[in-house]
């Protein structure tokens, strides 16, 4: 039985994981619909009254400007996926690359340099680092992406490094080396594909972390600059909840929770599926 079928089978028997997959899938569909311009396009129009209560015209009510909170919450799905995907894919790839290099050339200067970089990044308090990057790239919409990618890769890097050091001693790798295949080819063809289970799990964890970080950064004024996101909606809600307007808060936090929960369940299921030994214990 090949690995994919086995993993799929595992996932099918895991109701929580399946639920997670469905939730993430639904959100992805919404994000694509927003991308295609089918829904959520009126997030900016201020055509309602201030703080309308939910009703047939505005399902989730309106915010202070009279903008439709439902439209904004829906459009934010796209924002979340943009941030989540960019950060998850880039940081995982970067982690895979640096981790593989460090593991392959372990205990050489390459390894040393990469470990040093990881040590340095881990030693700067996360939010201070992110805030500083956001400043250095003042006003650029992608400042927070860069900040997150620059810090999120370290965990993936550590795990991949350990895995590559293990794989290095395996027969098929040794064989490839004996017949003189170049290092890059061995790494790319034989070693990295065998770390895919780490990468998938790490990517889904990074996705969750990216969305959660966006919320905090947007609250601090360092996040999304143009557009709307759940973080911006929550930041807005901090000025509203104590005056008794809960629409922004509820819409953003519930959708945020649903997506994060979906991803967390999926990540768990993936982890179990990839690591049957641990799951069966």
């Amino acid at each position, binding site marked *: 039985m090949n690995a994919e079928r086995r993993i799929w089978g595992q996932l099918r028997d895991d109701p929580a994981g399946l639920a997670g997959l469905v939730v993430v899938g639904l959100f992805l569909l919404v994000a694509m619909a927003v991308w295609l311009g089918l829904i959520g396009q009126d997030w900016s129009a201020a055509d309602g009254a201030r703080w309308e209560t939910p009703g047939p015209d505005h399902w989730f009510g309106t915010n202070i400007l009279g903008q439709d909170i439902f439209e904004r919450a829906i459009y934010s799905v796209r924002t979340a996926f943009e941030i989540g995907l960019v950060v998850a894919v880039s940081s995982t790839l970067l982690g895979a690359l640096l981790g593989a290099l460090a593991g392959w050339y372990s205990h050489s200067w390459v390894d040393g340099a990469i470990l040093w970089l990881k*040590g340095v990044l881990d030693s*700067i308090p996360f939010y201070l680092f992110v805030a500083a990057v956001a400043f250095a790239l003042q006003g650029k919409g992608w400042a927070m992406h860069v900040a997150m990618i620059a810090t999120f890769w370290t965990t993936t890097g550590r795990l991949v490094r350990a895995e590559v050091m293990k794989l290095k001693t395996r027969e098929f790798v040794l064989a490839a080396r004996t017949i003189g295949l170049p290092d890059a080819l061995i790494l790319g063809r034989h070693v990295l594909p065998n770390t895919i289970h780490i990468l998938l799990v790490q990517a889904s964890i990074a996705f969750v972390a990216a969305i959660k970080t966006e919320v905090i950064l947007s609250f601090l004024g360092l996040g999304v600059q143009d557009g709307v996101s759940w973080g911006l909606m*929550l930041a807005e809600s901090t000025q509203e*909840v104590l005056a008794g307007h809960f629409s922004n808060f509820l819409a953003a936090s519930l959708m945020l*929770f649903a997506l*994060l929960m979906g991803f967390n369940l999926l990540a768990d299921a993936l982890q179990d599926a990839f690591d049957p030994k641990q799951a069966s214990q």
Partner: protein
Amino acid sequence: MLYALRKAVYGLLLILGVTFISFVLMVWFGPDQTYTLVGKNASAEQIAEVRHQLGYDQPFMQRYLDYVTDLFTLRLGSSNASGEQVSRILARTVPVSLALMLPGFVLGNLLGIALGLAAARRRGQWADRLISALSVTGMSISFLVIVIALQVLLSTPYGLNLFPVRGWQVTDLPSYLSYVAVPTLSLVLVTLGYNTRFYRAIFVEEAARDHIRTARAFGASPTVVMWKHVLKNSLVPIITRVMFSIPLVVISGSLLIESYFGIPGVGKVAFDAITSGDQPVLKAVVGLTAAAFVLIQIATDLLYRLVDPRVA
């Protein structure tokens, strides 16, 4: 001896790296404080004057060298914004952050360990499932959402209205408890999911080890096995996790909690320093945090060697 030397060199390199990155990001590309310091209708000449005083007109290498020398000689200087000595700012704010973070940190970890043990003990049963489900739920809620919700529920007329809504007017034990309650609860809720899952994984792995199985096979009671063997053997990862959190608890504080609740701790001071470009304050906070991290890495390493001589 050689080992100690190697560690020292590594630590030094690490600190140099941190100072370099923080210098480039926070100082060289960081905010220009000139415009918050000049008055209305400032002339180009006055602006140049202030820039000169702040040292902004110096070349890159000169500024970096000054930065590093100040840090290594612990010449922390005075805040550009208020003129207060940085050492005094730290002496004023670090204890506040510590008092703010410690209860939540301790509670979050103790509860995490307790729940982790309970889950590992009943692995696969409903209790384990329940705890796992709850910890995933906890991990899926944003910090900001928790903070907002707890504030509304516990400190406003929309909820129970039990605690002060914000601030830090701490004069005695009751006032301390009342101000620290909501932040502590937030901190516990936000970390509990992660802690529980982390500790559960450790305990599960430990419980699966051969010597534990042996102990069980020889009829040791599950309670004894859990306490005596599993917990004891899991001490190293537990201590490591706790130790690595120390710099964050002690030096960096919690930016979000401090700024949301308006608490004058070091996290807020550091963030304000970044956004306003208050270089002396920044230097001290980032430098000291990095130094603490390095010391802890070394200490952890030593700990591993003590516990398990094979690690080297």
